Each structure stands twice: as C-alpha cells, then as structure tokens.
C-alpha cells in the first residue's frame, strides 16, 4: 500500500509503499518488478531507498510510457497490483576501494541514490557525486544527496543551474579538483552511460553501470534481458543489474530497448 507520493520534478514521482519482505532483504543495487493493474505490464524499477523502521520501500520514476503513467496516477492508500523483489545482486566494490565518483543522469539519479548512501553512510568511503540534467526542473534528490555526498557537482545542458555542460564535463572537473578515483559508478540513459564509459576508458577509470532493459519475470526464467557481455551471454536480472561498463555493448542494448517503442504510442493513444 502506498503511504507517500510526491511529484519531485517534471514528470517524475517518488512513491513510498509498505513492503516488509523487500525491506528485510534489500541490498543496495537491487531492483523490483511491478505491475500496476492485473492486465498490466511487468516493469523493472530500481529500489531507490528503504525505511527499515517503517517497512517502507521507495521507488522513483519518470513517466515515460503507459505503465509509468498508470503508476503516477496511483495515490496514497492505493495498492500496486503486484510487486516482486528485491531482485538482482547487490553492489560489490572492488577490494581496497576508498574513493568513488558517482555519476547520474536524469532519472538515473534515482538508482544512483542508494549506491551513494551505501558507499558514504554504510561503507564510510569517499563518495563524490556528479549529477547532470537537461535543465534545472529535471533535478531530483539533490537535497538528499547533498547531505550524504562528500562533494556534489551539478551540471545542466542549458546552464539553468550549476555548471553548464554534460556529465562528462563533470567527471573531468571532479578529477581536476580532487585527483583520481578508484572507481566510477555511472547510471542514466544508455547513451549517457556509453559516453561516460568512453571517456573513462581513456582516463583508465574503472566504471560500473546499472542496466535497466525490458524485463518480464526478472527471475532468470525468460531471457528477455539477455545481452552479450565480454562475449558471454548474461541476463541482467540475475547476473546484474550492475556490470563493468567497459565490457557492455551499449549500441546493441539501445537497439534492443527500442523494439517496442511504437506499441507505447498505441497504448497512449
């Protein structure tokens, strides 16, 4: 049952709902799969936060298709038809990691948030954060992140807030200011993760990405989220969702994610 719902940016919502099992088993990096109605589609969403004391789970989503639209129309006291989770694996940092650069683009900041929290609060490591958005109205969670990040860099495409530029400019700036990082975690649209990985390859900065492809069951049963990773087939749902970005073929993933685009239009019309 939904206990709290807020619109936190243009087209972007935060929902807290009651789910003790997910709360009790959650590890940072995991996701869930939900259906809004019995006839609905199953969609994966990263678990953005949990409130253990009250058994609450938080999801943050942008309205991008029909299912997220239906989800945005739910209100406090409504129930989500089905929620399965937590799914996937926890974030595991390489040994001896001390200093992490976390990069989030657009609504990718939502899945980035639990990683920042884990690294900064639980692991007590240095977590510097770069957030990019098209404009100031699309920033989410910046207040919360500011409280837990070591340093926070905001970048907008149009310069309406923070620095003007892309997240890749943010990465360069962060390194300029603070020296090298042990690892970068980048989460956002596939195209953003692709350019971040390209930059970081040239900088020799190991980079994790979190993938969010079309999924069905989320338990390794259907293979719908499979992709070629370092010449081996992986299922994002059970082998991920966090992968070494240097080994991901983003072009293939982008093609695969686009295969039902026109059907979204049909549902919305």
């Amino acid at each position: 049952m939904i206990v709290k719902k807020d619109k936190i940016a243009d087209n972007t919502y935060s929902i807290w709902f009651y789910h003790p099992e997910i709360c009790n088993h959650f590890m940072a990096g995991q996701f869930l799969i939900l259906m809004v109605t019995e006839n609905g589609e199953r969609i994966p969403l990263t678990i953005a936060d949990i409130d253990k004391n009250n058994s609450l789970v938080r999801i943050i989503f942008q309205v991008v298709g029909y299912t997220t639209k239906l989800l945005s129309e739910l209100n406090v006291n409504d129930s989500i038809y089905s929620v399965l989770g937590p799914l996937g694996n926890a974030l595991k940092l390489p040994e001896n990691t001390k200093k992490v650069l976390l990069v989030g683009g657009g609504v990718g900041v939502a899945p980035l948030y639990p990683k920042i929290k884990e690294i900064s609060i639980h692991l007590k490591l240095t977590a510097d954060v770069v957030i990019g958005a098209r404009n100031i109205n699309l920033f989410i969670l910046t207040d919360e992140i500011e409280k837990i990040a070591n340093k926070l860099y905001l970048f907008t495409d149009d310069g309406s807030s923070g620095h003007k530029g892309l997240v890749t400019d943010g990465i360069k700036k962060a390194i300029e200011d603070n020296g090298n990082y042990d690892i970068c975690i980048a989460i956002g649209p596939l195209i953003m993760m692709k350019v971040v990985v390209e930059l970081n390859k040239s900088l020799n900065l190991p980079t994790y990405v979190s993938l969010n492809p079309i999924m069905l069951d989320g338990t390794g049963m259907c293979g719908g989220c499979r992709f070629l990773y370092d010449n081996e087939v992986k299922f994002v749902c059970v082998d991920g969702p966090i992968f070494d970005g240097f080994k991901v073929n983003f072009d293939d993933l982008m093609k695969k994610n686009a295969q039902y685009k026109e059907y979204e239009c049909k549902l919305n019309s």
Partner: protein
Amino acid sequence: MRLEPKMQDPLSRIRNFEEVSLGFTEEEAILEAKRCRLCGICVKGCPVNIDIPGFIKEIQEKNFRESIDIIRKYSVLPAVCGRVCPVENQCESQCIYNKKGEAINIGALERYVADLISEKPEISIDENGKSVGIVGSGPAGLTAAFELRKAGFTVTVYEALHKPGGVLRYGIPNFRLPDSIVDKEINYLLSMGVNFKLNFLVGKTIFLKELLNLHDGLLLATGAGLPGQLNIPGENGGQVFLANEFLTRMNLMHAYEFPKYHTPIRIPKKAVVIGGGNVAMDCARVARRLGAEVILAYRREEKDMPARRDERIHAKEEGVQFFTLTNPSEIILDEKGLVKGIKLEKMKIIGIDEKGRNKIEGTAQYFDVDCDMVIVAIGQRPNKIIQENSEGLVFDDHGLIKVDENLRSSNPKIWAAGDIVTGAATVILAMGEAKKASANMIKSLLN
C-alpha cells in the same frame, strides 16, 4: 474403433486461442468407455497409478461422480492431465488394443469426467499441527500441496510470479490448457486451506534459511526455468525470443490481447521456431495464431522429435511447415538490430545414436530464410537462484538437485520434486514425483 473427441477446425482455430479439442459428449464418453475390457494393464503406464479400469467402469455405468472421485484419489489435477499427459507413451501404450492403434482414449475419458464434475468433494482435514513450505506452484508444487494438506499439514506455497500454476500458467498455451482449468484446480486447493504467497522469489524475497525456521519441512519444486540457447551469432537480437519469453508474454501476460493487456508483442509476418519438442510446437502454434507464416526447423527427422505425436499433427494441420534436417547457424539482423532472416545448415543422417534417434552431422550447405521473428525452443534447465543460499543442498553441473530414493535432499528438512530433480520432463512425471516426495515427508515429519 477408437473414438476421438471433436476438434475445432484447423482453419478456424488458428484465428483464436480457444481449446483445440472440444472433449467428449456424454454419449461418446460412454461409447468409448464401453470398449474397455477393464483388464487394468494400463495402470502400469501411469506415473501416479490411477485406478483406470475403476474410473472407466463407472463411466460405463454413467456414475460420473463416482468415476471422478476414483481419479481424485490419485491425482489432484485430472482436468489438466486429461489434456496434457502424453498418454500415448503411458497408459494408452499399455492398452491391449494399442497394437491395432485402437487403444482406449483414456486421456479424453479422464478429461470428460474431470470437466463434467468440476465441483470437488470436501475433504475433512485433521490438522496435525505441523507446517510445510512448498517452493514453486507448478504441477509438482500443486500436487504436493494437495497431498500434504490432506495429511493435515499447514501448507504454504511460494510462487515468484503474480499468478500461481507455474508452467501450466506461463508455458502451456490456452488452446491446450485454458486458464480457467488451472484456476479451478488452484481454487480447490484454496478451499482446502492451502496458502499461496505470490510474488515471493525464494532466495531473494525470503531466504531458504528463513523458510527452514518457518516450516517443519520444505519441498523444492522450482521446475526448469532456465532457457537453453543456441549460442550462434545474432541470437541476442531484437525479436529473437527464447521460448520461455515468447510463451510467457503470450500465455501469462496475454500479449495477444494487446492493448487490453498492456504487454506488447510484435506481430510477425514470418516466424522461424527452432526445436522439436512440445515447447517448440507450442511456440509454433502460438505464432501461427498471431497470423504468422511459421517454419519449424529441427535438426533431425520428424520421427526423432520429442514432441507428442498429436502436437505434431495439430501443428501441421494448422499450417506450420516443418523444415527437418536443418540446423540454424546464424540469425541475420537488420540495421535496427531486428531479425530479418536466419541461416540454416542442411544436415545429413550418418547412423543411429544410442537412444535410437538419427545421428546427424552438418553438410556445410547453407540456405537463408527471410523472417521477422525467431523463437529458440531447445530445452530448459533448472533456475539457479535457489542455489544462491543453498543451506547444504548439493547440485550437479546441470543445476539438478541431488536427492535420495525418497527425494530427500542432503538437508534432512528439504525434499525436492519435479524438473529440478529430473531436468525438463512432463507434468505427470512431476506430479508422480511430488506424490512420492510428499509421502516421504508425511512419514518423516509425523514421526
């Protein structure tokens, strides 16, 4: 003469997802039952030892309620088994009339009484104060739930999907096994007081260790939910489906009813299905119902196919074209990453293997087939998630769990049944095993 139930005409049935077989009428059922000499030799072929002559005798005498009551003593899913059991390899293969090709139509008779008397007897349950957990709600899980509840256990079934039934729900299409039949069986278990916890993935939503604390005994019946792959170029392209995804999209998520249901499927013009088992036939026939031209490519000859004879016949009647002795070598993608064709290699027979099937090898002769969908249906293995917190369980290289002759695992509180023990098999074999495991659980846990 063996009586077959009437069927939907192939031309009309490929335009709907309604059942293909219409089932016996009362008259037909009695006529077919009266052919039976009640010798009982067929029971040898039944994995759950149903008293077949017993229930057929009651049909002969029009005692339909008595007939179904007899079946229900042995099987909790008669309406399911009457539809999907490979009877031609089991009970009917033993029938004295089988040699002439006129075995009693036991499957259709079972289905007739199961459908006719769908309300079920109330079973009085003596609570024994103990609790069991069952992981998975497919045929093995449902059977065990029935047996263990009947024996007085508090029974909780954990299912990862949002609807119970496992492969009966996501795998077998509605035209072979309608959802309403599965619903009836589940409702019966609910009425007996079996608890279902849906959206519970054991290993993630709850750990095995916690289940061991919650229950006196556990049965793992998680099935074979890891799809086989060809490992050829192009296999990860758009509109290349592993059978499980295609069937789940269609059967569980009802993509064929888009946009009433919100899960989409691209309507293929021409689909190529790879494989020769029952799952491949299901995929081919579902794709046909989407309006596609369908080619089924199999590397051996038709007689080597593991699929049931009836399924092969139905597929062909529905216009599925069989390309036998062909093996895919590459899936060809367009610039958007979507399937535009498949490269098949012609195979040749070079002898007979130890199972009596043709032994084959490639000829290095290839040909391309244009298509806009490929479905890979070449077998399933057990899902690995349960192994992640395995509590002393032992698994082999194929992901199958090691159990003793009573289906008890290396952890004395855990039993296993179904495809996770045997590898991908049939509904009825899973049920047979679940009965065996349940019997041992009852014996061990009540002592």
